[in-house]
């Protein structure tokens, strides 16, 4: 290990964390060339592949590396929150109609249509410019773009570094959710903890919100596949030895490193455009169910990435911050936070599990001092997919959720069972650790009204 490994957790969470290989993976990350300060993990850490999910690693030039596995296959998987101009009481029984319309407008993407099919120069524009490239098609607004992390566009995106195979895998998938743990959830603001920040974010008690969780779909998956293979083959040439082959990496300033950063940035821009297109589908659904006024009054709160590598300034030097299942959480005053949120800090969204609450947080100065401006990204799994299926059948879970008043649209009972609430840690405990560590503060709690899964 070149640096220590450090976990943000309390005793109880640490006990759960010790139940899988995540700490071993965290220690492996500490062996990466050029890693600085520590290999860090958030309280939602769980076993991944190579990097643990919930892991953070900052590397510094000239020796520092970039690792595609430290970003993951779903480049810029992330979440976007929309706020509708009505309360849950005002929505009333229409929520089932809204959930149904969203399930029609936002396909999972497995060959069932509904996606934006982009080719050649159109796809190149999305890869280079992100969601801004879709504004001319009447998809989303300029304000949506401004209220997106990095304004939905990573510098240095290189469409030419994205392989034809990646393009063919993702070109027909823009505006689709994907499967696994991706979802669109209709919610209500259940509790306001920080009225000033809530007001700045445009959130009030009882309000209806929509949380979108998706990523770069097959395009990003293939970018990671291509570069893990390329860097694995080049490890000897770069003189790098690793404890795990999936940590394959290349120096930031090498041809391999630069090519990956260009391709990853393009895939990240594609992911922001994907969530932008999904948000458009959500607005269309709200329009169908509740009228144009409700659709036009549905505003974007923010959009954050939780699988990405970014060059950032920390403690007076440029580092490449890998966030693998972790969210940027810049504090009040940061120039990278949109002007309207600059007094209260960057919004961060922490989805819980189906049937439990999610949280909106605001970044705090402690994150810059202790975690390279980063917090957790969710509740964190604690039970395997097969383990979840052994404990409950999808149909039974569907009934349980519906008995709680949650409308469920999910074509796969198997997929539903795998995402059962008990498969995840308690999101309140995770948020509490982040708050006590001074990384972020809770702003509002969100409770599910309906969920659409791929």
């Amino acid at each position: 290990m070149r640096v220590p490994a450090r976990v943000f957790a309390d005793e109880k969470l640490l006990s759960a964390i010790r139940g899988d290989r995540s700490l071993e993976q965290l220690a492996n990350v500490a062996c990466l060339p050029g890693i600085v300060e520590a290999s860090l993990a958030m309280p939602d850490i769980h076993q991944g592949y190579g990097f643990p999910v919930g892991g953070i690693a900052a590397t510094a030039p000239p020796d520092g590396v970039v690792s595609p596995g430290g970003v993951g296959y779903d480049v810029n998987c992330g979440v976007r929150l929309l706020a509708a101009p009505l309360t849950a009481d005002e929505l009333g029984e229409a929520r089932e109609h809204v959930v149904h319309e969203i399930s029609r407008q936002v396909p999972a993407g497995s060959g069932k249509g509904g996606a934006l099919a982009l080719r050649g120069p159109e796809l190149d524009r999305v890869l280079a410019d992100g969601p801004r490239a879709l504004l001319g098609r009447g998809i989303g607004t300029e304000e949506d773009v401004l209220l997106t992390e990095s304004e939905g566009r990573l510098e240095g995106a290189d469409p030419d570094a994205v392989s034809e195979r990646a393009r063919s895998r993702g070109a027909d998938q823009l505006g689709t959710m994907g499967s696994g743990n991706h979802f669109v959830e209709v919610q209500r603001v259940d509790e306001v903890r920080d009225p000033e920040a809530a007001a700045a974010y445009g959130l009030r008690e009882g309000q209806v919100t929509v949380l979108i969780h998706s990523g770069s779909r097959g395009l990003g998956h293939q970018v990671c596949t291509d570069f893990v293979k390329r860097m694995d083959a080049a490890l000897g040439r770069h003189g790098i030895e690793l404890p795990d082959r999936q940590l394959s990496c290349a120096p930031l300033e090498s041809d391999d490193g630069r090519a990956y950063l260009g391709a990853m940035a393009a895939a990240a821009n594609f992911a922001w455009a994907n969530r932008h297109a999904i948000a458009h589908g959500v607005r269309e659904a709200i329009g169908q169910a509740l009228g144009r006024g409700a659709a036009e009054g549905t505003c974007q709160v923010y959009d954050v990435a939780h699988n990405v590598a970014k060059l950032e300034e920390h403690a007076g030097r440029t580092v490449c911050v890998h966030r693998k299942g972790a969210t940027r959480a810049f504090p009040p005053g940061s120039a990278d936070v949109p002007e309207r949120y600059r007094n209260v800090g960057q919004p961060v969204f922490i989805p819980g599990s189906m049937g439990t609450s999610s949280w909106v947080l605001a970044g705090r100065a402690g994150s810059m001092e202790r975690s390279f401006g980063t917090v957790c990204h969710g509740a964190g799994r604690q039970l395997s997919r097969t383990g979840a299926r052994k404990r409950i059948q999808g149909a039974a879970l569907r009934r349980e959720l519906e008995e709680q008043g949650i409308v469920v649209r999910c074509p796969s009972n198997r997929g539903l069972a795998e995402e059962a609430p008990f498969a995840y840690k308690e999101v309140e405990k995770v948020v509490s650790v982040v708050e006590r560590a001074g990384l972020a503060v809770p702003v509002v709690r969100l409770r599910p009204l309906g969920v659409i899964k791929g």
Partner: protein
Amino acid sequence: LFRWVEHTGELELEIEADSRRGVFEQAFEAIRELLAEDPGGPEQTREMSLSAPDGPALLVEWLSELAFLGETEGLVPVGISELRLGERELSGEIVARRAHPPHLVKGATYHRLTLERTDEGWRATVVLDV
């Protein structure tokens, strides 16, 4: 024989077979099981030609290619009609049905990747990102 081993976040595939070829055949069956939620349409064939720096990486390529065909062409694997397996290359032809398989497999990873001979035969482990 293949089985899914407990893994908190992803799917860990463990395979035991009499031969190295048997490992690749069982990996095919595992992907078939994952993607076959839909009976699909008429059978089609696809030629395969893959290479990698070593045997374990070739197994990753094989799984990745099957997932890629499922995602880009909606092909659910049904059977292997021909398989020529070298140390670092693979070619042959598979039979598949066109359907709407879930986009489940994001990638086949190199994490704790093994393909090795044992006293009983051959054994492999691959973690899939799902």
